């Protein structure tokens, strides 16, 4: 058994994320691996093609830090708040540097991952027709449906060099239990060439095997397993901590200028060694406020004769 998979985030990023890589840090609002994004910034990775349906604050930070050459996305907003100002500054003013974009709809981008994960040549979808997106993204094409003869929009597969997926619990081999909003985690893990998996808790293989339907990612896809509590803060992990909505609002203020953004990164990213140190800076009272009330599911019987 490959017990060498268990490592720190520092080791995992250093080993599996390289300059120029295409990276997918997964998570639709939920389970966004901020600790991995911060480690990528600290290690000064550059020329990355960053892919995410919702770039969210994590990619806004990585764009401000100069890690990104290109962004592949479908919704670049601060969810529930408004704009992603670093993303906008890169596009509108080329600050800190220009950013190439490749833009899809949500179905287009999640469909690209699905096609990548299942080794399909391309994916047809009933979308994009009538929209201006295909005019500006030549990767969105149309083909003639060989059965009906009608025009159908298609998107190409996406196979990132590396995916980072955060989950509630996994065993040391990387069998991962995820619940709540499961977004594109499974598709990203299956589509990527390398997978870094981080988990709030490392549990025994027995815990995983007691509830196999909850395992969205099996160990043989996973290259690194990182035990990283609070990895997703300021996003959230269902059942562990809630979304830090105050911070999502504050981010709008922090990022008013490129300089104010860098002041934040200096203190909270470059100025700490790892996620544990970052969490020490968050007041205990706030952590307590983010702890969710219990809502336990009813156990089921997986037994056989």
């Amino acid at each position: 058994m490959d017990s060498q998979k268990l490592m720190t985030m520092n080791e995992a990023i250093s080993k599996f994320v390289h300059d120029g890589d295409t990276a997918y840090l997964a998570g639709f609002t939920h389970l966004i691996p901020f600790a991995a994004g911060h480690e990528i910034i600290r290690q000064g990775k550059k020329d990355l093609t960053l892919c995410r349906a919702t770039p969210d604050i994590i990619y806004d930070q990585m764009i401000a830090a100069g890690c990104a050459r290109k962004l592949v996305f479908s919704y670049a907003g601060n969810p529930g708040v408004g704009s992603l100002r670093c993303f906008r500054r890169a596009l509108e003013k080329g600050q800190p540097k220009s950013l190439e974009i490749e833009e899809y709809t949500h179905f287009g981008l999640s469909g690209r991952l699905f096609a990548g994960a299942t080794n399909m040549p391309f994916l047809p979808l009933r979308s994009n027709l009538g929209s201006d997106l295909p005019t500006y993204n030549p990767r969105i094409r149309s083909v003639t449906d060989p059965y009906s003869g009608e025009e159908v929009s298609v998107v190409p597969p996406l196979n990132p060099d590396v995916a980072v997926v955060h989950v509630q619990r996994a065993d040391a081999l990387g069998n991962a239990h995820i619940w709540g909003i499961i977004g594109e985690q499974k598709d990203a893990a299956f589509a990527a060439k390398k997978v870094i998996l981080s988990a709030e808790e490392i549990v025994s293989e027995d815990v995983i095997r007691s509830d196999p339907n909850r395992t969205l990612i099996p160990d043989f896809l996973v290259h690194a397993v990182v035990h990283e509590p609070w990895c997703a803060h300021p996003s959230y992990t269902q059942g562990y901590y809630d979304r830090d909505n105050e911070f999502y609002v504050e981010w709008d203020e922090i990022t008013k200028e490129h300089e104010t953004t860098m002041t934040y990164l200096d203190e909270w990213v470059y100025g700490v060694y790892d996620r544990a140190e970052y969490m020490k800076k968050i007041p205990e009272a706030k952590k307590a406020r983010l702890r969710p009330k219990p809502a336990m599911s009813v156990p089921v019987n997986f037994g056989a004769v």
Partner: protein
Amino acid sequence: MDITPSELMVTVAARELKDGESCLVGVGIPNLAANLAKRTRAPNLIMVYESGTIGSNPTRMPLSIGDPCLVTGAKSVVTMYEQFAYYLQGGRIDVGFLGGAQIDRFGNINSTVIGPYKTPKVRLPGSGGACEIASNVKKIIVITPHEKRRFVEKVDFVTSPGFLDGKERWKTLKLKGGGPYAVITNLGTLKFDEATGEMTLVAVNEGVTAEKVQESTPWKLKIADPLERTPPPTAEELRVLRSLDPERIYLG
């Protein structure tokens, strides 16, 4: 207290939701409309969120479409791909809400960019699932303030197709959705001409005239005859609505 424009728009939107329908909800105003409908005339409304939660039953106001309160007590939660494939493209959503920076006379919506795409004046978030919602949902409802900068002759970028430049061309795309259904504003309600797909003023709110609506619309607005008057919110609608947003984050 006086009824705010947001309260009026939410109430009008909630009345468009029928019991038993499935509704693709967004945060903010559409979320209030769906929750108001569910707590009044449509208790069996199925609230679906773009994040993959099906039959959500939030006990507090969700602060984003991925809020954990949309998961607690939901009927089902599916992956992003499954949400778009099985639910949206599968034709299982009856009503969807869309918003944007610009809308034109055929209900095309722009939520991508103001100015040229490659040299944007203002870069907006982009489609997200909006294009899929516009293409696959049976009825699209837009709730927006009625301002000249939002109602434009031609949108800078079609993010979500409405009836394009008229219903004839829209039909050639053979989209599975029904297209734009209603635009609900602080001045009144607009629907779309059955034959041409052109936006038509069908109702004005209390104290508003058709002339006033025309002043805020840059093209020659089609006006229904007879033009209806929007019934004001009932006391019960207001009571439920105000309980949903006690801090008045969205109601103003």
